[in-house]
């Protein structure tokens, strides 16, 4: 709706940003790196800074039409090309198309003999020549720290670095400079002192055999940035940063309902089922039917044409498909139609952040309306000392903002009713369904009830759960169960079973 403005708007060059094209990073930086400025990306060895810089150039060339020059002090063109091939970047093709130019600058480790005054004009000339050759708009210097080894005179080095960064800004080039992490400072030679506008630190650590990658915006002048560490991962498509951190409870509360997939359970929930966008927890001891509940939910959703994403951390997709066939659920047809996607991973294959990053990436790619995580038990245990709850909060928060209805299954242990779950996750969940085995009078049976479901008048009665080839059905209300539901959660009244 155009409004007549009295005076033309003045552009603020300091806020202009160059999008990186790296998944999640543009969200986290509010649009990308400062345009026409030099940014520093630093971190320990193997943290991914060279890859980030290279992806910045590649995406810049492919997606935003900005050719880029990479001045590489560490690797030859051939080695670099081979190294990033695994990310799907074809540097040779890009070079041929004049979208990318890689210049390998070799700096002798043993300093060259100095016989009088000098400056680094040679480097400037090479860089200018490269920029001019492909009309580059982006530049990467990786890693400029090599100059510290090769140039003996610190005074000359300091003034030349400043001259170099000023030159890059004068040419209106958006540049990334990489630096190695220092012990007492951010980088080994205090590179951060030369960089005024943007500093990003990457971290890669291995704790208890699990590797974790995190990204942090140390400084970003003129932009209010989150100071959190964002998990990220590197895979065959490049880097993806998980941009979720804000715990502002700003997600909308939807009123639309979705079926649970079990008609009798819908009846228990005002006849309508879950709220769309809500989080559902299904707990129970081993073999009580948690995965079947999840599968029923998903099956009904797919029948409505909704895309579902099923993360499985214990059973392979093949196992699940077979098991669900025995209870009358044909999930295979939804897989074939592309409505149901399975993603199987071992919980210990990566840290909790790694899982979070992978989940986030897949959700962004497939845009499902239903997500199942089955089970979250091992994720909780695989995290070690880490604050599990904060990670799960982020995940649930993200799902709610995306208005995805989510279901989490959790294994509880007989004799240790619900406390462990309660401590970790229950407060995050809008609905909590409890499954249980019991053997009153020697006859084994399964029980189900809705412990809580926010925002609706749900039935609090315990029903028998019947699992057969017809699927999941609920029987009559049980009066002889041994559970006493209290405010704190259910617990066994007595040991008289």
């Amino acid at each position, binding site marked *: 709706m155009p409004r007549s403005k009295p005076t033309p708007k003045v552009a603020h060059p300091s806020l202009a940003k160059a999008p990186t094209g790296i998944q999640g990073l543009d969200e986290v930086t509010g649009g990308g790196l400062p345009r026409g400025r030099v940014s520093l990306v630093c971190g320990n060895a193997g943290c991914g800074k060279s890859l980030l810089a290279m992806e910045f150039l590649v995406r810049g060339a492919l997606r935003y039409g900005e050719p880029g020059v990479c001045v590489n002090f560490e690797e030859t063109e051939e080695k670099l090309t081979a190294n990033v091939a695994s990310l799907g970047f074809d540097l040779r093709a890009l070079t041929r198309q004049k979208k990318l130019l890689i*210049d390998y*600058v*070799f*700096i*002798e480790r043993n300093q*060259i*003999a*100095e*016989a*009088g*005054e*000098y*400056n*680094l*004009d*040679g*480097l*400037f*000339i*090479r860089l*200018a*020549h490269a920029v001019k050759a492909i009309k580059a708009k982006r530049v990467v210097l990786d890693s400029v720290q090599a*100059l510290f080894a*090769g*140039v003996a005179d610190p005074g000359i080095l300091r003034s030349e670095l400043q001259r170099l960064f000023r030159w890059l800004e004068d040419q209106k080039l958006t540049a990334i400079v990489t630096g190695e992490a220092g012990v007492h400072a951010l980088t080994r030679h205090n590179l951060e002192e030369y960089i005024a506008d943007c500093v990003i630190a990457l971290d890669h650590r291995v704790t208890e055999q699990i590797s974790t990658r995190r990204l942090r915006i140390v400084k970003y002048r003129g932009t209010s940035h989150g100071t959190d560490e964002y998990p990220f991962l590197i895979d065959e498509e490049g880097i993806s940063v998980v941009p979720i951190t804000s715990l502002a409870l700003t997600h909308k509360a939807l009123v639309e309902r979705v079926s649970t997939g079990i008609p009798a359970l819908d009846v228990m929930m005002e006849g309508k089922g879950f709220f769309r966008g809500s989080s559902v927890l299904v707990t129970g001891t081993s073999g009580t039917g948690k995965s079947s509940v999840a599968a029923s939910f998903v099956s009904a959703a797919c029948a409505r044409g909704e895309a579902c994403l099923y993360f499985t951390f214990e059973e392979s997709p093949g196992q699940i498909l077979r098991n669900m066939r025995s209870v009358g659920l044909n999930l295979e047809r939804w897989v074939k139609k592309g409505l149901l996607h399975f993603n199987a991973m071992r919980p210990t294959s990566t840290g909790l952040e790694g899982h979070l990053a992978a989940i986030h990436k897949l959700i962004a790619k497939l845009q499902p309306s239903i997500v199942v995580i089955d089970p979250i038990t091992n994720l909780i245990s695989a995290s070690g000392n880490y604050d599990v709850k904060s990670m799960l909060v982020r995940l649930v928060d993200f799902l709610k903002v995306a208005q995805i209805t989510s279901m989490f299954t959790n294994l509880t242990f007989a004799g240790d009713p619900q406390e462990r779950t309660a401590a970790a996750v229950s407060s995050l969940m809008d609905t909590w369904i409890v499954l249980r085995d019991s053997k009153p009078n020697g006859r084994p049976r399964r029980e189900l009830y809705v412990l809580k479901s926010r925002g609706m008048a749900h039935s609090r009665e315990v029903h028998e759960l019947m699992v057969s080839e017809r699927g999941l059905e609920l029987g009559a209300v049980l009066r002889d169960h041994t559970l006493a539901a209290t405010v704190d959660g259910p617990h066994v009244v007595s040991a008289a079973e």
Partner: protein
Amino acid sequence: MKKSPAKKRPAKTGRSDFFILRLYIAGQTPNSVTAIANLKKICEDKLKGKYRIQVVDLLEKPQLAKGDQIIAIPTLVRRLPPPVKKIIGNLSKTESVIVGLDIQPAR
């Protein structure tokens, strides 16, 4: 100031006391002018005619910086006799030049 074009000339074979020196500059900056003058003087004093100086101006031919991996200006490269040696600076430190180039006084 005489500048030879920067093309590789066939070396005079076998003469281990003939020096081919290539000086990289970037325009007529004070350091570059000083380097050329200093280099001529040292060569006259120590090499007595058994030398050839090539001056390469990277402002005119920037693509030549890559071959010898030139970053600092001025840079002096001893191309012959082998091995290749490099020195950076305006060559005002005469002793450093002599040591760095490993110049044995011509007999």
